[in-house]
């Protein structure tokens, strides 16, 4: 929104300058100023993001095994790494698995996050405080520590989940392995991911909910709208930009899920549990095929771009819409 307003002002000033016939130098200086201002940020991004990404792309075009690593000299193979990935049925399964797992996690995160945010809006302030404190605690727990605790809880031998389920009379869960069946295993890992992702989503949505104008809600209620209709026709449209941002960020985060899979499976995930982030890491750093690992990472970026294209389009539409509206 901010960006839209700024561009807007620029657009309006532009013709006036021309009419006034200001000298070219001053115009140039004026035009250059924003670039000077943005230069440090661009330089920082180039150094910490663009340069490594560029190296990654170059690496993905080389055969870079351990011998090449020690010699600091890769062997140029063009797009061979990509060709072999495309022809690899196991890799295609990894991509598909990652997409499905990401979609399920994002959906669960957004639905649960929204429900908790709505709940927080409605409960007594003291309860809201309790919920908020709980969320912040989850948020504040370092990922590795949190996942380690989840791993203990789902432990086959000593885990409290098996113990509690059995003693609650829900069946015999003594020596139940949660990871024998990959669907069940991914459900458990998904719970861990969603658990960690909910606080940010909930807190953001709750902040958004407080911005929903009271009078519009009341007007809708006067017009006879029930709670669901208020949510559907008032709350959701107001929160739409927030939903788009949260969905984008969640997709990006869940798509590259690594810690949760890696730690829950004792750093030895079997082939059934390979998601793209883990697969790339294993190929590069465990099997020492750095070129292939880089190619997987590049494919990951591309798939992620495609997967978030929908949201990006939404952004662009909003931005353009803002311009047109002005």
């Amino acid at each position, binding site marked *: 929104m901010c960006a839209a307003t700024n561009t807007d002002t620029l657009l309006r000033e532009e013709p006036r300058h021309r009419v006034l016939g200001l000298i070219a130098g001053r115009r140039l200086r004026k035009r250059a100023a924003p670039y000077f201002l943005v230069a440090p940020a661009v330089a920082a991004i180039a150094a910490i993001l663009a340069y490594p990404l560029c190296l990654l792309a170059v690496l993905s075009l080389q055969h870079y095994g*351990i011998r090449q690593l020690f010699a600091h000299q890769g062997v140029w193979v063009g797009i061979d790494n990509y060709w072999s990935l495309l022809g690899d049925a196991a890799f295609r399964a990894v991509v598909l698995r990652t997409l499905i797992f990401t979609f399920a996690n994002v959906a669960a995160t957004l639905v649960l996050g929204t429900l908790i945010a709505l709940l927080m809006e409605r409960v007594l302030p003291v309860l809201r405080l309790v919920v908020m404190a709980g969320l912040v605690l989850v948020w504040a727990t370092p990922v590795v520590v949190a996942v380690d605790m989840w791993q203990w809880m789902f432990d086959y031998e000593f885990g409290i989940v098996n113990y509690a389920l059995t003693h609650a009379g829900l069946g015999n869960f003594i020596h139940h392995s949660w990871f024998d069946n990959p669907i069940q295993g991914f459900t458990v890992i998904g719970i861990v991911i969603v658990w960690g992702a909910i606080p940010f989503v909930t807190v953001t949505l709750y902040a958004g909910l407080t911005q929903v104008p009271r009078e519009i809600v009341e007007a809708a209620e006067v017009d006879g709208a029930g709670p669901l209709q208020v949510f559907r026709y008032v709350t959701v449209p107001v929160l739409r930009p927030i939903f788009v941002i949260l969905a984008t960020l969640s997709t990006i985060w869940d798509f590259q899920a690594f810690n949760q899979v890696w730690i829950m499976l004792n750093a030895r995930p079997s082939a059934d549990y390979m998601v793209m982030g883990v697969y790339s890491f294993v190929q590069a750093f465990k099997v020492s095929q750095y070129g292939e690992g880089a190619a997987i990472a590049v494919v990951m970026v591309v798939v992620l771009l495609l997967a978030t294209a929908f949201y990006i389009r939404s952004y662009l539409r909003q931005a353009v819409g803002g311009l047109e509206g002005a």
Partner: protein
Amino acid sequence: MRVRSSLVPAALALMALVVGACSSGSTTNNESGTLTVWLMDGSAPDSVVQGVNKDFNAKYPNVTVKVELQKWGEIGTKLDTAFAGSTPPDVVELGNTLVAKYAAAGALADETSKKSSYENSSSWLQSLTDSCTVGGKLYCIPYYAGSRAIIYRKDIFAKASVTQLPDSLDGLLSVGQKLMEANRLDSGFSAFYFPGKYWYAALPFIWDFGGDIATQSGGQWKGQLDSSGSQAGLLALNGLVSKLSRADRQGDEAKQDQAFAQGRIAMIVANGWEIGVILDAKSGGDPSLKDKLGVFPIPSHNPGQSAPVFLGGSDLGIAAKSKNQGLANDWVRLLAGAKYQNQMATVGKVIPNTTTLLGLNDSDPLIGTFARAAKNSRFVPNSPNWANVEASNVIPDMLVNVFTGRVSFNDAIRTASDKVAQILNAKS
């Protein structure tokens, strides 16, 4: 491979070094600098490392030795990074299955011409020497070995009226069934506890029936996990696991000693040093089990014989890029020499690097069995690519698939066999 409570903090090593420097009367060498040594967590007892450093500093009072302990879990990544840099550690302990990878890539110094300068080099354990040998050249010095046998609970055996230790696979199964029957009221009891990914312990069964991981002919590797011998071994093992084990079929052996100490397990396949873990309260063990433990070799399907075991262990390599080759040689000479190998066996309870010291623990009813098991031992395919087979979890995945039955037996072994061949035959 070996996971034990952490041992020497670097400070201790430094202290030993200072003490050593002060007490050495005669200065024999003026060299100075720092010698960096990477040892694996739990490989050498504190006293051995301190002793080696003390002796080393008696000769080189001005050299600082930095012993840094590494974890098995992330060692591959750390080694890749270290060797790629310009100042890798001077001396590194390498798991014997990892040596070929680093030697073939040029990371390790060629020690062939210095071999005879190492004590006992003519009587080194053949299997360890083989693991150091790539293309006919020696790239590391054998450090110590470990072999597996079955640790069992004498009292649980006695309570189930088992008087005769199994001396065949069938015997193991029938003893196990007797134990399961005697403990049928305990739904968590395992007569023979076998976590699904414990592939080191699965190899003896495969080898015992004439199977193998892969064989090489004419420079090409051929996967053998689907050979008839391997199939027979895996089916026999699957029979034991399905009838006698309630271990996690998706889990690994990392916590098996703690589980064993809980008292609801009669037998585990384990390394000799794991006895120490089982009895150590600090690492989750139970000291009161001291007189209740016994050991017998993994039985063969041929009655009266024992199955060949996997000879694990470590070697000491010297980085090709090390600027302290001479110092590194001398430090390794101490740790791999008779004096400290003796202590590795008697204090560390591992199998020393030379056949001349193999008898040290013979009279020990527990450790002696492990040392004897090492005499009938085998090794994994000695290829620079072997480490990648391990890193890809090919064999653990296959075992999980066989034990859980979520993939058909034939598919599981064929996939694994093909994958092994594919990785071993890949250009590195």
